[in-house]
């Protein structure tokens, strides 16, 4: 069985040129937690997720997944890839290949654990056992019958599930999602987030999601981290986050 993952984020700061994006962020995320990053746009939610995925590296401070730091391997290709493969990431724009079939998109999530040629062969024609693996995953997400359809023939919500399937096919130890429901209606948003919770719980994965809808976060997540202008405003169990805190978090600068 997979040992649940642990994140340690310690005094992390990042700026792009003169602009400070994140300053002095410290967080610990334990196994089986579900955490929502909330806050106004530009608060640094996406950047924090990207730091946690090893996509960007902090100017100062450390980000450790199970005691190993991303920054320490940032110039060692194969070790960085191995660490990145442990983090499943669902992108806001899905980042799928629209003119390939669902099965090809999902299979490409597992490339990190395959050799170059077998990965290429799987892309052209996935072998039977692999197809079965993909199918059972898609069935779990409720889109099994779409396995051989082109992604661009699917609805937004279905594409979202394909993106989730690709991230899960990676066999990650943690699941991150950046504004996963920003382009679906409230009912579907809720259903999708519940589904993400369910599959993360089945696999004992910590789930970390950025959401601009704080009410949705309060209803579904165990823990909420409020970000504003690159700083943590609060880090509380969701049932202790009251409306006053949220109003303060989303208040316009000069209001």
């Amino acid at each position, binding site marked *: 069985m997979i040992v649940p993952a642990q994140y340690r984020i310690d005094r992390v700061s990042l700026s792009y040129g003169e602009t400070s994006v994140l300053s002095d962020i410290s967080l610990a995320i334990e196994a089986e937690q579900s955490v929502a990053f909330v806050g106004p746009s530009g608060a640094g939610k996406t950047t924090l997720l990207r730091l946690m995925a090893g*996509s960007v590296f902090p100017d100062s401070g450390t980000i450790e997944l199970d005691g190993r730091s991303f920054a320490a391997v940032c110039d060692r*290709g194969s070790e960085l890839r191995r660490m*990145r493969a442990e983090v499943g*990431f669902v*992108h806001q724009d*899905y980042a799928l290949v629209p003119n390939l079939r669902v099965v090809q998109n999902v299979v*490409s999530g597992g*490339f*990190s654990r395959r050799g170059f040629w077998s*990965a290429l062969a799987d892309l052209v024609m996935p072998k039977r056992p692999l197809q079965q693996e993909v199918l059972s995953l898609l069935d779990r997400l409720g889109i099994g019958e779409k396995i051989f359809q082109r992604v661009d023939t699917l609805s937004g919500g279905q594409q979202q599930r394909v993106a989730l399937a690709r991230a899960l096919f990676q066999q990650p130890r943690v699941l991150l999602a950046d504004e996963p429901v920003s382009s679906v209606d409230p009912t579907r948003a809720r259903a999708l987030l519940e589904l993400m919770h369910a599959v993360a719980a089945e696999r004992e994965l910590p789930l970390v999601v950025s959401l601009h809808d704080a009410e949705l976060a309060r209803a579904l997540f165990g823990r909420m981290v409020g970000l504003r202008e690159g700083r943590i405003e609060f880090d509380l169990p969701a049932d202790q986050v009251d409306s006053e805190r949220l109003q303060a978090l989303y208040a316009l600068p000069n209001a």
Partner: protein
Amino acid sequence: MRQGLVLIALLVVGMIAYLALDLDLGGLSPTRGGGDLLLEFLGAAFKPAFDYESGAVPTDWNPFFYQVFAGLWRTVVFAAAAIGLSLVIGFPLGLLASSLAPMPVRVSVRAMIALMRSVHELLWAVVLLAAVGLNTAGAVLALTIPYAGTLAKIFSEMLDEAPPQAFRALQLAGATRLQAFFAGLLPRAAPDMAAYAFYRFECALRSSAVLGFFGYPTIGYYLKLSFENLHFREVWTWLYVLIIVVILLEAWSSALRRRFVA
């Protein structure tokens, strides 16, 4: 705005060139004999030849329609061989000329591509004709050098313009750059690349036909012979056959394109 200035600049350059050449459009009016020949030539368009125009054809010559078919076949084969080889060479060069390749590689490959492209296929044919004689491989090579260069240039631009989200996402998922390229970037550029390669096949077909003027056994060779013998109806037969093939290819490629892109 910028584009408008470029167009105006081109027009101005055109006018200066017009003056520099001291063009006299009156010189375009044909001489009396030339006019008759022109009329005869245009008239032949309505009655293309279905057999040799000359009555005195040696008995061991193949029938005319066989000749047409064989000439056409060789024209297509030359073009297909050249495009096939151009793809094999042009694709890796395109990848190396794209922004995916490290700077020094990209710059030197782009310079090489520019060299290949800057000399027209007919000039390559002249050079290779002098170097290796009237040789099938020479003709294919003459087409391949500039075509591989052009494919490489356009492919590299298409790869650079392809949406990179999936390419980046796969790398973030632990795939190598090359894996992410084949799974996330190439599929997005592939429909455009295939359509463009098909368009270049059309161009190769025309170039292959013209190569016949140098003595290679493509349509151009027979076209030239017929023309020199003033067998204008035969000339039109060759032209019509070429036009039909190009139109068929065009229809096929646009059908494929609709399927790829839609």
